[in-house]
């Protein structure tokens, strides 16, 4: 990978997405969409597709924009700030990432153009009940006979499976985990919607009962991991963006809310909380952007940088969203105030695609394995 855009181009992309979100994805819109059946803002999704964002990571020969992690992260900051309800993560990042990583040209040619156009909603099932997104947690088994495979087992925490036109599944084979495609409407598949605490998300539990499946590519878990890395970069961007937005809203409230005859932002309790959260918000942004950059440049330290972003952005978002409610006081204890939407998102993203404890452990494992680890990058 590399960075295909100039700084100016990236600024323009971010600005365009920011404007789109401001114009068409206000809080009112998010609240309306999150109560719909599929939780997808179809008009917004179409606009994002038109702008090339649904196919951001799809190579241009398959109809996409052919961009990479750096652009992905910038866009994710904006969609995360606005709590956009789209299948971007499921379809454009995780599934597109899996297909590209599979190096299965035929599958790519068949599936990626629709994903890039936004006309196909795709998702992927990688984990089961324990929701650890580790290979040992895959609970779907593939049985291959005469070149034909059938899948049996369970997957959970699958995003947007209820709306998916394309469903990829990681299943165990004698050679380890492998990637398969199944028809989502196959009668052997039962998709049960899981009610979510963060109503802007859609999750499903899927059971497979001898479902015919097509093997995608030959790569094993490393390919899944490559797609998960992209997903973590996007998650980190959304977390950094969400954290920054609820932080900005809180500071603005502190500037204007009057109690005791003066703005509450003039009281040290609020000032000091705000200063501490600013450090968290800036650190999250730095971590997310660095992870994207390292991945784009295929640096040796990319793995560490992504682990770092995974836990640092999750923890920062959770802390900022939680403290924001306290700083607002009573007003943020109401359903009508948006603060809890950010807290719900922050809590969900603390576990979706892996927990902070997991990534801290991996981070330390990586850096302690190096003979002379570098203390601070870059």
């Amino acid at each position: 990978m590399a960075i295909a855009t100039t700084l100016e181009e990236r600024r323009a992309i971010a600005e365009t997405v920011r404007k789109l979100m401001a114009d068409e994805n206000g809080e009112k819109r998010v609240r309306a969409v999150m109560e719909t059946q599929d939780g997808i803002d179809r008009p917004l999704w179409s606009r994002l597709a038109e702008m090339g964002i649904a196919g951001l990571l799809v190579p241009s020969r398959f109809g996409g924009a052919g961009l990479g992690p750096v652009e992905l992260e910038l866009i994710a900051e904006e969609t995360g700030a606005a709590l956009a309800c789209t299948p971007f993560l499921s379809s454009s990042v995780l599934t597109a990432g899996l297909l590209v990583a599979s190096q299965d040209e035929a599958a790519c040619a068949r599936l990626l153009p629709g994903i890039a156009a936004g006309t196909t909603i795709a998702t992927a099932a990688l984990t089961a009940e324990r929701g650890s997104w580790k290979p040992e947690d895959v609970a779907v088994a593939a049985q291959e006979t005469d070149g034909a495979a059938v899948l049996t087992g369970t997957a959970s925490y699958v995003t947007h499976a209820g709306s998916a036109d394309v469903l990829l599944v990681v299943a165990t084979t004698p050679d380890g985990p492998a990637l398969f495609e199944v028809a989502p409407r196959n009668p052997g598949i039962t998709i049960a919607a899981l009610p979510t605490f963060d109503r802007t998300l859609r999750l499903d539990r899927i059971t497979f009962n001898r479902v015919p499946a097509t093997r995608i590519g030959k790569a094993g878990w490393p390919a899944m991991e490559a797609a998960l890395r992209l997903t973590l970069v996007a998650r980190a961007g959304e977390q950094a963006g969400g954290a920054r937005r609820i932080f900005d809203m809180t500071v603005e409230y502190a500037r204007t809310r009057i109690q005791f005859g003066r703005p509450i932002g003039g009281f040290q309790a609020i000032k000091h909380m705000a200063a501490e959260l600013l450090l968290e918000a800036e650190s999250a942004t730095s971590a997310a952007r660095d992870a994207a950059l390292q991945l784009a440049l295929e640096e040796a330290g990319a793995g560490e940088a992504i682990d770092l972003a995974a836990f640092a952005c999750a923890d920062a978002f959770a802390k900022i969203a939680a403290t924001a409610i306290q700083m607002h006081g009573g007003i943020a204890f109401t359903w009508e105030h948006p603060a809890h939407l950010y807290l719900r998102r922050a809590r969900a993203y603390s576990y979706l695609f892996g927990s902070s404890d997991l990534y801290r452990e991996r981070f330390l494992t990586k850096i302690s394995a190096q003979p002379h680890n570098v203390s601070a990058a870059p």
Partner: protein
Amino acid sequence: MTNDDLRREVNDWLAAHWGGAGSIAQGMWDTNAEMRAWYTKVFEARWSVPSWPVEWFGRNLSDEQTSIVIEAFARVGAPGTGQDRFNLPANTLLALASDALKDALIPGLLKREITTCLLYSEPSAGSDLAGVRTRAERDGDRFIVNGQKVWTSGAATADYGMLIARTDWEVPKHSGLSFFFLPMKQAGVEVRPLRQITGEAHFNEVFFTNAIVPAANLVGGLNQGWRVLQTALAYERSTMGANARKSRHGSADDIIALARAAGRLDDPLLRQDIARVIALRRLNALNNARAKADLEQGTSSSIMSLGKLAMSRILHEEARVRTAIIGVESLLAGETHPTADDVNFLALNAYFTSIGGGTDQIQKNIISERVLGLPKEPELDRNVPFKQVRSG
């Protein structure tokens, strides 16, 4: 009358009249006919407020004797006594209302024929309760009320609202407030449910449009409302503390059972966290017990004021550790996922304690000033006419 005589009398009376709980609801704002009938019996036998004066429905009993009555009722599970300790509106009226208002409202309150709600907080008066902007204007023998209150429980069913409103805008903030018992069931009062972040709607917003309150329902004198409110808040705080301790959630049992059920009781990280939060709850219980013992020995205790702050920390920390225990399951919700639903509810509802009834930040101010004697901050709005005070 000796303590033994009293014990005999109350036990005999209960034996003669108490037939078991039946459909007597214990809810704070619920009423039904059977409950009211029982409370009326208790009132007529003068057990409702044993320590109150004889001329005001009581028996003039000592604290010790009042406890004997309360224990006797508790032993058989009968409600209705001890209202001298917890009936907030009745106590406020007894302390500060005119005799006519006492006569008019206290019997109904003690018999549970009359229910009340609190009309204190406003959108622009949260932490700064003395900053209320709801106005009550004199109009002959009545006041006309306009404005808005928020965070009112039980407003939809209440007969009276305990209202703090501004009656003088020319004087500093604390000096222009008055306290009323406002009849809620009138056209000028509109109650709208207020949905909380948990999705429930335990509270209301209340809007006043030329609502009317008789001047006779003024408590504590015109522009003396802040003093009345302090009395009422003291009762409310003691009630809140007691309620918090009765919370159905969050015992050590629960959190260990949760970890065990999740198969994570052997996780060394979680073990330390679980031990920490159980310790917080125990330490709070030990603090409360020590405060109580100090009080019984006549030593005033500074610990009491720490309870709400401690509980706030306990609730947030427990929610955090419970979330860590269930992990990815915390993404889920609804009746089909009761464990996740419970944990997520606790995480959100912890703010009820850390914000409601005075935020943690306000509590820390109070502790540092009243217990530790640290100076108050400069109050910019203290000595200026309220009409000049900024709001927003």
